[in-house]
């Protein structure tokens, strides 16, 4: 599964994109796996209320299923316009 990071999430984790082998059933489970990896993940995911998530390029929430998902992206609240 491709995992993408944007804005300060990208900066804290240090990479814009990685491929992750996971059997996580939901976004929350994927986040739990990532947090256990390294300090930089733990820091980036320490406050989920300051993060947003998209599964296959559609905005969703952390309870969302990852069944069949190919791409998950984590980023701060958007500031377009």
């Amino acid at each position: 599964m491709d995992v993408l990071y944007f804005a300060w999430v990208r900066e804290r984790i240090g990479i814009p994109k990685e491929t992750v082998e996971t059997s996580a059933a939901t976004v929350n489970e994927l986040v739990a796996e990532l947090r256990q990896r390294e300090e930089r993940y733990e820091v980036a995911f320490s406050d989920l209320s300051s993060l947003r998530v998209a599964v296959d390029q559609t905005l969703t929430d952390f309870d969302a299923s990852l069944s069949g998902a190919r791409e998950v992206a984590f980023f701060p609240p958007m500031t377009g316009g």
Partner: protein
Amino acid sequence: MQVRVQSDIFDPGAELNAFTAVIDGAGAVVSFSGIVRDVAGGLQTMEIEHYPGMTESALQAIAEEAMQRWNLADALVIHRYGRLQAGEIIMMVATASPHRKDAFDSAEFLMDYLKSRAPFWKKEVSSAGADWVAAKDEDESALDRW
């Protein structure tokens, strides 16, 4: 309906005129343009990051929803990404309708959604350092109106 995501600068006046030229029978045209502000002073650049692929589909979905909810002849959304200077145009929307109220409401709807539902992130780089622009609670609550 036209949605463009680009790093190149563009001319809002020329875009407005081109948009207006093809809206047959719609007497009311509203445009919004956003300009890079140097709020604190000392801004060197504004860097706009986006999510290629999702950005285009999110903007397309927002514009389609506007076309369905209001009586619109046409809608235009242009949003830049990359490195911008103070005073440069960031983005614009335009809507055309037979009725001014529809043109105003749909343009405001597009802006409210662009602000907090399109995957763009702004970073201000100044002599004092670099900071990601924080989302405002008021931008999130602006969506309640729609």
